[in-house]
């Protein structure tokens, strides 16, 4: 099934992608002929039950898994297919894609500021400038007073905000988040979702969030519902409805 598009330029598009895993002697189809475009300035929510293929889609769109069939396009240029060695796309990922997961996945032996700084230094930003930029990002997320704390000294919400700061360090055009609020309470979860909203609105980042949580439907521009590895419905989210005054 092909998803509908709202006007905006496409950053990353998965076209006709299927993904099959081998589980022992059995083949498991995680994704079937999926096409979905992620556009700049748009916050897309992907919802659906466990095993519906949400995370698999995110992996393919984030160039972490190759599709078994189909292609991935970046700004209309094919970038990955079944035979692509995704390890070779590490440089591309570093400069174009940011990832956020349910677990913050911070490096435990680096402080908050160093966890952000490392992402910049990996992208050849000089240490001094990297540290200054990392501090700036942490300050944006209200973590300036926690910059020298190790992850173990931060709350779950603070850790997640550090991981968002890290994901944004290299100004990605695409931000992919897998259940980013699952480990947070309601108010922390909303804070995180509002950060995504701002990124889409102000920085024109294409943001795609996989979630189980129905509370955030008012924040999304578009909600993609998946089941059994297929897109079963694409509907406008609360933000889009408000914009269109539906």
């Amino acid at each position: 099934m092909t998803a509908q598009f709202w006007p905006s330029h496409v950053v990353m598009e998965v076209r006709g992608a299927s993904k099959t895993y081998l589980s022992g002697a059995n083949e498991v189809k995680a994704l079937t002929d999926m096409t979905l475009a992620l556009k700049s300035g748009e916050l897309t929510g992907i919802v659906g039950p466990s095993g519906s293929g949400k995370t698999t889609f995110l992996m393919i769109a984030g160039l972490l898994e190759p599709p078994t069939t189909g292609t991935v396009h970046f700004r209309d240029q094919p970038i990955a297919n079944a035979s692509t060695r995704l390890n070779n796309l590490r440089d591309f990922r570093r400069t174009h894609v940011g990832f956020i997961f349910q677990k913050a996945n911070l490096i435990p032996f680096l402080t908050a500021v160093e966890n952000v700084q490392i992402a910049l230094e990996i992208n050849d930003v000089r240490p001094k400038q990297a540290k200054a930029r990392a501090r700036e990002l942490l300050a944006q997320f209200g973590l300036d007073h926690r910059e020298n704390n190790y992850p173990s000294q931060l709350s779950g919400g603070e850790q997640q905000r550090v991981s968002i700061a890290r994901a944004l360090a290299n100004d990605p055009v695409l931000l992919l988040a897998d259940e980013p609020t699952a480990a947070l309470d309601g108010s922390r979860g909303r804070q995180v979702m509002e950060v995504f909203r701002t990124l889409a609105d102000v920085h024109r980042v294409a943001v795609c969030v996989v979630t189980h949580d129905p509370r955030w439907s008012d924040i999304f521009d578009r909600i993609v519902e998946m089941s059994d590895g297929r897109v079963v419905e694409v509907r406008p989210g609360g933000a889009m409805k408000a914009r269109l005054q539906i």
Partner: protein
Amino acid sequence: MNIAVKDMRFSMLRFALTAVGIGLLLGATMGMIGLYRGIVHEALLIINDIGADLWVVEGGRSGPFAETSAVPSSLDRRVEGVPGVASTRRFIQYNQQYIIDGKSVRLAVTGVDYPKDSGSWIPLIDGRLFRSTRYEAIADQSTGLLVGDVVRLGHDDYTVVGLTKGQVDMGGDGMFFVTIPDSQAINRVLPSEAILLNRLAKGRSRMGLGDGGALAAVMVELKPNADPEVVKAQMKAWGDVEVLTQEEERSMLLDGRLWRLRVQILAFTAMTLLVAGSIIALTIYMLTLEKINQIALLKLIGARDRVIIGLIVQQALWIAALGFSVALFISFTLYPHFPRTVLLVPEDLAGIGVALLVISLGASWFAIRRAMQVRAQEVLA
């Protein structure tokens, strides 16, 4: 940012303990090699230092170190007459246990042919060399004696006039240098029963059976142009003596008497090296396995392979360097207090260092191979 150092600083205690563990293993390896070197060094001490070109010993024997040897006390005069011989010195050495100040002490009593031999080859750390033909002694500090101590051995008192360090025989007994007449006098003191038995065995006596008048060997210094083989042949023609060069003495000691011990120690050393190498390699590999999640994350955020390789190799080298330092510290502070000499030769230590470097880099290579197989998405695992 150096993430290898950051990780080590964060888990400082753990890395320190790992380094200490590796240091102890390496220290044990250094100790085993040092013990081997020490045994060889001690065994060859007299042969190397005393400066004899030839050793004239009892016929049919490989004395006086690899086997016992007893030659007549007048043999030195016979040897002096052989063409090509520049000088001779008499030699006696035997081990005995004595009670000194109520304590049992084992001594390697060694006769020095004073005044022909002033004992100038004996390395003193205190006191002086011999000035009298009788009743003076130079003792190794391992005997517990000090300059000025008076020791009663046999029927006479001996004053310690000089002190040495590290002068022990192959059994580890401290040397107690006295003049040849004194060494014969000390050795002559036997219980009356032994004297009786010796009289019955007259003509068959040798050192150790109580014939205090006999020598163990006669040492020969050759004239500058003398051919050792010719001199040897002349003396061997007498039929009652064996003549050995310095090199033959060394070889008979190392390849004869000490052969099994050397092989045993070398086998243990090889085993210690193998165990140390395996544990070091495993430790470095395990350090990488523990960081799989962080390596996956680094790949996820786009880190180049060199960042990950740098993390692994730097940590391996840091642990190796710290472990090596700990091993050196242990070796140089602890081993000097061991009862036997543990000889730390710079070449051996450098060899261990190179082996450690190779092991660390080898283990890093396996760890890097594993790290390269990690996929970025494993961060979700």
